[in-house]
């Protein structure tokens, strides 16, 4: 174990997987940087968040590929290279840029295998930074995993800790299905213990971070940490919760959630996304369909409001669900029964 930031944990996974498998390549804007610059230095960027730093010096230009600003072509490049036997890790920089590349994601990589009679495989990993927390405003702060989790054929990873980030990125690269890999911008510098060497976190297995009797709290990405704050605070008062980190939103670990719900009878779901057709809605709907007989109180959905992400610090702060909001929701479901 070593204490690493999520940024460094991701970087380590990329180094290890590229070392292990020569078919793994990295593609994106400024994934190394410095090409065509006047300093003569390559790897001048290493990704705008530093996640791909050091890959170019180690693996060379044939495997670490800087591109023009052409996101459709970047994802298309990854799709085609994957169909032809490579294992590309493409980067979209900001998740919001699915806007200019969605076709290659939802009509192409997600559907090849199915449409082509099961004969294609498209082992692409598409990394993208998401989330509020940097005051990057409406076009650089969205958490669009609900949109992509809805699409059959895609797997979707949303790690919340450095260890999960490493283990899930390595697992994503080895996965023969396409994986959308969301990295929360506000978590890049967060530290945690990370196993050294090969480490894999399987998809579709939620993590039970706290155990309790009273309430099932389901959270995703950065919200896991906010939920943990609320849960820990209430534990001191004797209100104890199961805290479930979904880890992947496709597949969803239904069993883990329903099993917990069958013990607690109360559900709070926390999702940084906008409320409509969110993962919070999906989990709440699961409770209403498959978990109904266990449910003893109304489900509490804690999400961002139905607004774009605002710019100003004070606005963004009230836009993002807070530990206080989560605490209040837990108290509310406790009052009900």
């Amino acid at each position, binding site marked *: 174990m070593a204490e690493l930031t999520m940024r460094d944990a991701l970087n380590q996974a990329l180094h290890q997987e590229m070392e292990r498998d020569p078919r793994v390549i990295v593609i994106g804007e400024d994934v190394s940087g410095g090409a065509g610059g006047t300093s003569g230095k390559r790897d001048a960027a290493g990704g705008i968040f530093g996640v791909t730093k050091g890959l170019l010096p180690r693996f060379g230009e044939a495997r670490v590929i800087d591109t023009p600003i052409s996101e459709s072509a970047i994802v298309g490049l990854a799709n*085609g290279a994957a169909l032809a036997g490579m294992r590309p890790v493409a980067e979209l920089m900001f998740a919001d840029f699915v806007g200019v590349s969605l076709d290659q994601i939802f009509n192409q990589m997600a559907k090849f295998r199915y*449409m082509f009679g099961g004969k294609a495989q498209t082992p692409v990993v598409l990394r993208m930074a998401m989330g509020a927390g940097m005051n990057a405003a409406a076009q650089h702060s969205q958490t669009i995993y609900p949109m992509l989790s809805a699409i059959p054929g895609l797997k979707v990873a949303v790690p919340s800790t450095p260890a999960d980030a490493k283990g899930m990125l390595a697992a994503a690269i080895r996965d023969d*299905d396409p994986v959308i890999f969301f990295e929360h911008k506000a978590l890049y510098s967060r530290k945690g213990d990370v196993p050294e060497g090969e480490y894999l976190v399987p998809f579709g297995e939620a993590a039970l971070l706290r155990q309790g009797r009273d309430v099932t709290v389901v959270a995703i990405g950065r919200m896991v940490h906010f939920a943990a704050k609320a849960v820990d605070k209430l534990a001191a008062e004797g209100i104890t919760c199961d805290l479930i980190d979904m880890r992947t939103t496709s597949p969803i670990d239904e069993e883990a959630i329903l099993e917990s719900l069958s013990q607690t009878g109360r559900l709070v779901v926390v999702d940084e996304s906008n409320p409509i057709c969110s993962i919070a809605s999906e989990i709440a709907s699961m409770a209403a369909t498959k978990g109904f007989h266990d449910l003893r109180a109304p489900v509490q959905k804690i999400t961002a409001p139905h607004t774009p992400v605002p710019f100003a610090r004070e606005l963004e702060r009230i836009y993002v669900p807070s530990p206080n909001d989560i605490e209040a929701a837990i108290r509310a479901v406790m009052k009900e029964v």
Partner: protein
Amino acid sequence: MQQSPDQIRQAYRQMRLIREFEERLHVENPKGEIAGFTHLYSGQEAIAVGVCENLRETDYIISTHRGHGHCLARGCDPKGMMHEIYGRADGLCKGRGGSMHIADLTKGMLGANGIVGAGQPIAVGAALACKARGDGSVSVSFTGDGASNQGTVFEAMNMAVVLKLPKLFVLENNGYSEHTGASYGIGSDLKTRTEAFGIPVWEADGFDYFSVYEAAAKALEYIRAGNGPAAVLAVATRYFGHFEGDPQNYRAKDEVKNFRETVDALKQIREKVTGAGIFTVEELDAIDAEVLALIDASVESARTGPVPGADILLSDVYIDY
């Protein structure tokens, strides 16, 4: 015409195969057994075949919504294709894809594609894999005049140049983008636009197999020598509507008839090779008969092929979930 008789026979057969496949679909389609959208390639046979006859086993192609010709030219099984078009469980894509999504990865055929302009970046990606393998393979995309206005196509061109990839862009100007003339949507012209990205263009007569073959040969030579992408621009026409059922109000009455009677690709190649004494009319007729029988048999078996069920609906969404 420096090709061997065997090469020419093969090319002629492929063109005839596409022609018969498509003309037969045009006959079968109104009967109501074929579902969905069917876009026929008849009229453009010389382009698909002229290009694909230049390719090696390790090369890749990607097609468009009008994919049958490219698939057949690349060697996809006509019977498997016919079963797919009829939605059969034993079709090339298990009946899940249909006419617009026929693919055969084992043949380096990366699929017909229902999204105009989607194939080009994907083919650039396959070219990246070709370059990495270093075995001289190339990747080919086919692009219609209409598709040439899609942003993804321009991005793909620039990307292929920036990364200096072994990528052939085949531009097929058949005069129409659905119900609109090609000249309307292209503000300048295809050759100038393509060259401006740094991609040399070899022009060809899209009705003439030999013309296309030679243009593609030159472009591929340039590409395989490691110079980066190149393009072939071929002009032809489509004999049928945009899709089966299109009343074609936008076309002059005798437009297709004139093309068929004058420059038709099959007519031209027959005249050329019999004129040059390479094959006799009877030899070509024998090929025609063989192809016709193959199409007959394919339609026959497709009509009664196995119907896909819930297992096929639900499988292959993921390899492992």
